[in-house]
């Protein structure tokens, strides 16, 4: 067997390592380089896995099969409802809440009664759980020492006491560094995260060793177990357990929120709300991984020891030892110690804060000893109280462990503890989501639920342990059959945990809701309800909350109060920081207004809890009690203001949208303006060009009468041509402007389109003859009649023909005019054998002042407006004008004019 001294040294050495980790964490926090990352936060949540998980899960699996998993599935599901946790964190930060007792007390009017009640429930529910951890440590010592500790052994020789003492020192050192309990214990969190990793690796090591070392892997293990009907029974869950399966999921889901240590780690120690995002999946993943080998270990233990009376709760240690793996057993021992240590430290810190702030302080404040008018620094006293509370809680745990021994009241405590803290659920959830929930309701619910829990679960466990009579369990209270402790009103067929959970939560929630609805809340409660429920909706917590306090105060008194409870140094540091938020250089100039009183109370809350803080602040300021009606009015107004500001926000959004539309419209106008500007500039250019020749040539003729006659004739010819070009240009610009503005005059009538084409050809015939261009036609004798303006149609035709003749080569040029009637329209085609157009030119030529090809020689004839005008005209008649061409292949200009409907019918009739 392993030497006892060696094991003891190893244990102390491991705790020393935790010290080192915690010191490192604190040092880094002091240096402003926090090591609390999202991953560390998520791992620290695994303080949930105590020695009860480490050793006890295997034991549960040997009797209940896979149902032990419910204890870990519940927290997984609750973490997915992370929005609840986020709200708890946000409220706690805003209100400087330091424990779950403070949370509930603060919400229901900063009530000392509630704070005390919650603390008592937590202490009664959880101290035995601490005892269970010590028992696990003790039992693991026995196993690795190999000699059961004699119960008659004097307490001072007990190694468990030594361990408990080290834990107390650790907790005092790292848990009470600051007075302000809202200050985080980063060193402790780091140590907890570290121990979480250690216990996980230790458990996995044992699991892998047993599964793959002792047995031939998972399937081998399961197959061997399946051979025994006794064990094969564990492979499935039968429907008779369905109730307790769900109950355990609900119970553990509540425990992950409301166990004091979980509240401490999850809410109070949270550094950054965004860490929750990692924890939501990483912590459940941790739970899954640590549970993979629980069931295999249980089966392995049962197979290996063949039901040989070995305690299943010790399989994690005894299996490696039986296989001679002493080193692994020691590692497992460290893992178990680790799990117990983490739980004890955090739970003790959480409980000591509650005991100090919610039980001891109210009593102290009432006693003459801390007369509020005395100006004595109480910060040292506060720290001493907290340290004393830590010591007492651990001693209580140790005492319970020594007294209870193997009694059921200790071994069954895990779920009993869970059920106790589940009683906080109605007051907590109601407090966060239901404004009507009030103080009286919370007190009634908690008392009722706690009473039912005592009667149906804790006291029966005492009875089972033989400490008290069993009469109330077996025969009912006062012999009344319907009052059997674990079959209330004849409700049977449930296990004791489900039975307790059902009745206690029914009574608890029922009383909470009913009493809340039947009684009137106090003014403070209404204010707090608003702050809690709407915490996400009031970012600044400004206006209304300051107006909810009225009275007179002296800044000196408030500062003195802060210095007494926080210590002068810390108080001045906080005051200076607060003054900066109000843009004051010197905190001594702070006005004693509502906001300052609020600040002082919040600061004090961090140190002594909200209920005590309220009493203390009340002792130095003259507060004018606001009536409930008044508070409700102010809150109403505040919510109206919020509604207005939302309306304003909506209005300003509308304005923004309107502005954007205006801007877009303006952009469009600017674009149009720019286009108009371009157009004017182009027109100017087109008008100035012929004027340039006219002016230059006229000036020269005028200045120099000696120019010879031929030159004179030539120049005057040019002047005439350019003057004509100018005239044409002006006419066409006017024409274009009329067409575009819709002011053109149209005289529409029935027009024989063939006649129009022939007339047009006649009027440009001279141009063709001069250039020697052939004009061929392919026209019917008399074409269809269309509805159009005869002159306009002629204008289009002449434009197309004169364009064609301009671009074809002299002598060899050939222009063909054709006409087709099809699909309800007439199509006229003017084809030439000129140079043709490139693809991109085919559209460009229909833009104003854009001419095709190099028109050097013929430039004076073109204005660049003919085609755009023609297109406008054709489109007015409902037709289209376009060109089909390829370079070198000539161009075909085509336009269509729709046939009138009845004409169409007549034609059909003729055919």
């Amino acid at each position, binding site marked *: 067997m392993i030497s006892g001294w060696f094991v003891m040294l190893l244990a102390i050495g491991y705790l020393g390592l935790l010290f080192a980790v915690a010191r490192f964490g604190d040092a880094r926090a002091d240096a402003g380089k926090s090591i609390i990352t999202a991953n560390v936060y998520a791992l620290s949540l695994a303080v949930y896995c105590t020695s009860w998980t480490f050793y006890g899960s295997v034991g549960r699996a040997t009797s209940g099969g896979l149902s032990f998993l419910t204890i870990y599935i519940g927290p997984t599901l609750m973490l997915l409802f992370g929005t609840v946790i986020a709200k708890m964190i946000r409220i706690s930060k805003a209100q400087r809440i330091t424990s779950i007792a403070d949370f509930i007390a603060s919400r229901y009017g900063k009530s000392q009664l509630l704070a005390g009640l919650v603390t008592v429930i937590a202490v009664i529910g959880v101290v035995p759980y601490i005892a269970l951890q010590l028992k696990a440590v003790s039992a693991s010592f026995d196993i690795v020492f190999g000699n059961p500790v004699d119960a008659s052994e004097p307490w001072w020789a007990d190694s468990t006491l030594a361990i408990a003492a080290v834990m107390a020192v650790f907790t005092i050192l790292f848990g009470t560094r600051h007075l302000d309990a809202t200050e985080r214990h980063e060193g402790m969190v780091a140590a907890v995260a570290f121990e979480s990793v250690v216990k996980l690796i230790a458990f996995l090591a044992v699991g892998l060793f047993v599964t793959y070392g002792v047995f031939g892997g998972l399937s081998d293990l399961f197959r061997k177990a399946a051979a025994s009907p006794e064990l094969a029974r564990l492979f499935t869950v039968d429907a008779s357990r369905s109730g307790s399966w769900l109950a355990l999921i609900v119970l553990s889901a509540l425990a992950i929120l409301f166990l004091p240590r979980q509240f401490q780690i999850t809410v109070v120690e949270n550094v950054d709300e965004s860490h929750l995002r990692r924890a939501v999946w990483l912590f459940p993943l941790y739970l899954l991984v640590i549970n993979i080998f629980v069931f295999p270990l249980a089966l392995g233990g049962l197979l290996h020891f063949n039901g040989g009376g070995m305690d299943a709760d010790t399989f994690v240690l005894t299996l490696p030892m039986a296989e001679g793996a002493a080193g692994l057993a020691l590692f497992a021992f460290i893992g178990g110690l680790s799990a117990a240590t983490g739980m004890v430290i955090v739970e003790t810190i959480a409980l000591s804060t509650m005991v100090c702030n919610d039980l001891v302080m109210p009593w102290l404040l009432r006693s003459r000893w801390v007369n509020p008018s005395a100006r004595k620094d109480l910060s040292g006293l506060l720290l001493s109280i907290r340290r004393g509370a830590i010591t007492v809680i651990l001693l209580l745990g140790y005492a319970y462990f020594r007294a209870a021994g193997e009694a059921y009241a200790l071994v069954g405590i895990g779920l009993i503890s869970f059920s106790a803290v589940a009683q906080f659920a109605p007051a907590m959830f109601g407090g966060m989501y239901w404004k009507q929930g009030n103080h009286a309701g919370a007190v009634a619910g908690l008392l009722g639920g706690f009473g039912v829990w005592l009667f149906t679960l804790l006291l029966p466990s005492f009875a089972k342990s033989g400490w008290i009579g069993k009469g109330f369990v077996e025969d009912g209270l006062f012999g009344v059959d319907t009052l059997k402790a674990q079959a209330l009103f004849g409700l049977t067929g449930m296990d004791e945990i489900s039975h307790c959970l059902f009745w206690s939560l029914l009574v608890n929630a029922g009383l909470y809701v009913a009493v809340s609805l039947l009684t009137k809340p106090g003014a403070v409660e209404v204010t707090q309800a608003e702050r809690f429920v709407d915490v996400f909706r009031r970012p600044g917590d400004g206006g209304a909350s300051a107006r909810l306090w009225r009275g007179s105060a002296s800044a000196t008194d408030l500062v003195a109060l802060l210095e007494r409870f926080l210590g002068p140094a810390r108080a001045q540091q906080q005051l200076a920081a607060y003054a900066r938020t109000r843009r004051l250089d010197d905190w001594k100039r702070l006005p004693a207004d509502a906001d300052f009183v609020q600040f002082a109370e919040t600061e004090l809350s961090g140190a002594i809890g909200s209920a005590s803080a309220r009493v203390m602040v009340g002792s130095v300021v003259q507060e004018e009690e606001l009536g409930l009606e008044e508070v409700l009015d102010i809150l109403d107004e505040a919510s109206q203001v919020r509604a207005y500001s939302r309306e304003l926000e909506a209005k300003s959004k509308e304005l923004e949208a309107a502005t954007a539309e205006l801007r877009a419209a303006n952009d469009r106008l600017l674009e149009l303006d720019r286009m108009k500007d371009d157009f004017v*500039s182009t027109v*100017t*250019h*087109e008008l*100035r*060009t*012929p*004027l*340039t*020749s*006219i*002016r*230059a*040539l006229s*000036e*020269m003729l005028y*200045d*120099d009468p000696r120019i010879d006659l031929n*030159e004179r004739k*030539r*120049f005057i010819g*040019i002047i005439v*041509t*350019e003057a004509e070009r100018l005239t044409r240009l002006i006419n066409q610009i006017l024409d274009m402007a009329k067409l575009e503005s819709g002011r053109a005059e149209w005289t529409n009538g029935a027009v024989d389109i063939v006649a129009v084409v022939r007339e047009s050809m006649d009027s440009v015939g001279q141009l063709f003859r001069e250039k020697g261009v052939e004009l061929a036609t392919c026209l019917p004798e008399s074409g269809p009649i269309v509805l159009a303006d005869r002159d306009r149609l002629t204008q289009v035709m002449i434009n197309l023909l004169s364009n064609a003749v301009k671009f074809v080569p002299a002598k060899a040029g050939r222009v063909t005019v054709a006409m087709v009637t099809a699909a309800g329209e007439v199509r006229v085609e003017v084809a030439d054998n000129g140079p043709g157009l490139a693809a991109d030119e085919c559209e460009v030529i229909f833009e104003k002042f854009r001419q095709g090809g*190099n028109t*050097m*020689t013929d*430039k*004076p004839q073109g204005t660049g407006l003919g085609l755009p005008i023609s297109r406008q005209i054709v489109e007015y008649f409902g037709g289209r004008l376009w060109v089909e061409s390829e370079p070198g292949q000539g161009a075909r200009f085509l336009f269509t004019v729709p046939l009138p409907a009845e004409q169409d019918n007549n034609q059909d009739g003729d055919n």
Partner: protein
Amino acid sequence: MAHKILIADDEPNIVISLEFLMKKEGFVVAVAGDGEEALAKVAGFQPDLLLLDVMMPKKSGFEVCEALRADNANAALKIVMLTAKGRDTEVAKGLALGADAYVTKPFSTKDLVAKVKSMLGIV
């Protein structure tokens, strides 16, 4: 020795008038009908002054001016830009690109001749 002037414009009638005007004043004149031709003639004809229209096919007057000024060989060449678009931005752009003077069409023949002569240093 007579100064050489290159006229670059795509309007034949303007070219005719300018050519006549400059020849009458005793200059040696060459003509280009578009931007590319203008660049080629500057290299071949080596004019002392270029009358350069802005709106020309192939290469605009601005592009021609820029290309000429990028080459140090043409440092002595005087460039007078002619435009029918009288906008201030165009004038500024032309001068920024290295033109020596800017004349708006239609122009007074006397003024143009005076300007050309003064730029060539003929009094």
